[in-house]
């Protein structure tokens, strides 16, 4: 009797584990009309997307999925597939191989850590075009793409600099990598362009995606006197923290005002759709090259979210003016003189930082309070 019961217990335990194996796997969904394959519409070009997070996260992966939907709407002869929550590393290689062997002609890999898997898989499938977001390695059939998000960060900094009363701003930052450091610097320059006395305090969370941790970090900044919270994270939690305290916030990735309507001033937002359409068209016309695209705001790949009601007309006018100069190419954010935290001039008057310098940013500009751990 006892043995029998133990047997059942073991069986049930196994069933539990099996249930997880079934439910835990990331979703793989083909959208568009599956039936159309049979109807003989064989000219449909298959395009695949690989995301690092879930599509509904309101952050990075969500912004790419909006782009995918835009592509599908604009080009009816394109069929898209996406795989979400794909961890960087060996899993990415497996997913990329699977997508390429299933007949996808263009694959967009949307996370930095997919870089080496993309290069590896691309060698095996020379007929497939791979586009890797945020990376820097290319191959004959691998291109990279990204947007100059620092331009939008600078503009959001102007709004924040005009809004602050305490002259202390907080920045919830994920990891001390050049992309994040560049954003913090651009934001700080924007803030201090209208408010030279303001400082930006940085707190590192060491996570892209953990609402409770991000909120704790934002709270600690608010407690230390910050009254505007900016962030380089994937969830709206830092903004919710600001809203709860009646303070302000700057979003990122997508328009996050629905999460904290009284707090969000504006924020950089991604708009990948037009770029995806352009790339797919180029591949179809055989004009595609393995370029390294780093699109400016003028291309609308990166933009700022609609202003909240608390943003004043003066700030709006200043932002529009700067934006105009950036779009026309008359001026860019990292134009000297720029001093570092110690007051040493790092970029001389009239000089512009090169793309290479911006892509390897490892120092903070004057006005940032915080340290880059190395």
């Amino acid at each position, binding site marked *: 009797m*006892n043995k029998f*019961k*133990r047997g*059942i*217990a*073991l069986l*049930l*335990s196994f069933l*539990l*584990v099996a*249930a*997880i*194996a*079934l*439910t*835990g796997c990331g*979703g793989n969904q083909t959208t568009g009309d599956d039936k159309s394959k049979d109807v003989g519409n064989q000219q449909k070009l298959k395009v695949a997307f690989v995301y690092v997070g*879930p599509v*509904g*996260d*309101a*952050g990075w992966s*969500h912004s790419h999925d909006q782009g995918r939907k835009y592509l599908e709407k604009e080009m009816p002869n394109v069929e898209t597939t996406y795989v979400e*929550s794909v961890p960087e590393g060996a899993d990415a290689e497996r997913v990329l191989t699977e997508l390429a062997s299933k007949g996808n002609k263009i694959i967009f890999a949307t996370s930095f850590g997919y870089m080496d898997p993309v290069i590896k898989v691309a060698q095996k499938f020379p007929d497939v075009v791979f586009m890797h977001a945020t990376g820097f390695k290319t191959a004959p059939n691998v291109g990279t793409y990204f947007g100059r998000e620092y331009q939008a960060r600078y503009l959001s900094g102007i709004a924040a600099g005009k809004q602050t009363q305490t002259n202390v701003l*907080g920045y919830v930052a994920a990891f001390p990598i050049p992309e994040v450091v560049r954003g913090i610097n651009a934001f700080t320059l924007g803030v201090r362009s209208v408010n030279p006395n303001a400082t930006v*305090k*940085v*707190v*590192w*969370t*060491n996570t892209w*995606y*953990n*609402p*409770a*941790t*991000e*909120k*704790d*970090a934002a*709270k*600690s*900044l608010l*407690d*230390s*006197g910050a009254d505007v919270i900016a962030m380089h994270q994937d*969830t*709206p*939690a830092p903004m*919710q923290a600001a809203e*709860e305290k009646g303070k302000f916030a700057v979003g990122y990735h997508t328009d996050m005002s*629905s*999460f904290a309507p009284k707090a969000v001033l504006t924020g950089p937002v991604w708009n990948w759709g037009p770029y995806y359409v352009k790339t797919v068209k180029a591949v179809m016309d055989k004009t595609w090259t393995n370029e390294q695209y780093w699109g400016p705001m003028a291309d609308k790949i990166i933009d700022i979210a609609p202003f909240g009601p608390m943003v004043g007309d003066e700030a709006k006018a200043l932002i529009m003016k700067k934006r105009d100069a950036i779009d026309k190419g008359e001026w860019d954010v990292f134009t000297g003189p720029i001093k570092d935290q110690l007051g040493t001039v790092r970029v001389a008057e009239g000089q512009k930082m090169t793309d290479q310098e911006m892509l390897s940013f490892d120092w903070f500009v004057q006005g940032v*309070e*915080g*340290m880059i*751990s190395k």
Partner: protein
Amino acid sequence: MEVSPWIAILATGIVAGIPILLAALGEILAERAGVINLGVEGMMLIGAVVGFMVSLQSNSPWVGLIAAVLAGAMMALIHAFLTITLRANQVVSGLALTIFGTGLSGYLGKSFIGVPLTATFKPVPVPGLSQIPAIGPIFFNHDLLVYIAYGLVALLWFFLFRTRSGLELRAVGENPAAADAAGLNVFLIRYACVIAGGMFAGMAGAYLSLAYAPSWLENMTAGRGWIAVALVIFGVWNPTKAFLGSFFFGTIDVLGFHMQTLGIVVSSFFLKMLPYVFTIAVLIVATRETKTRRVAIPEALGVPYVREER
């Protein structure tokens, strides 16, 4: 009005400690009755996702909370059935429950990721008490669930150590055979405690998704269920000590960020490690005391009770 950094740190420490405190209270109940449940993390996740989904539908955080409590109870029922009725290994069953809860919550919550929630628990300062300098902002300027947690600590302590039922419960965890001989229904008491433990864990999960960071995302407990298990040991199976422990662990949790704002750099990985270091230290001390004074660890913890055939 700017508050001093220390008060701010302690006030956020209290709140950061609440989810692990609630989960630990439940685990204390179960372990006092002799059943280890390592499924806390899984039960919390199910509580978090169910609480979130129901709050969103019903537009009431209270309805969501009740649903989360019931969902936690359902999860615990699986563990109770496996370990009490079928006498399965408690550790194996608990681990399976955690993995199951992680997967199931991710599956259920898929379409709720990134959905804003308006029906949340909001801070309600206690009239009078919140005006006391230092004590007020630290303890009495939070949402209602925090005050409920205070109440539950006192209630559970009184129940365990000052009532006859509490004594019976502890007897079941110390020596089930003797308790059985004294006419107690060991199976019933263990079932009740494990299920009540699941209710606490469900509430802890709902605290995360409805009050702490009102949103749902996969694996949002981020290891808090395990810290709760550690907290039970840290608090030597005593609700009041668990409360102090949760305050301590919660403060460590938020301390790193506050230190960064003050310009002090300590590795966040070092701080994350601290609760476990202290737990190991307490475990060593508690085990030694057990030998001499028989406090702490329930004697029959982890041992399935087999009633002798008559």
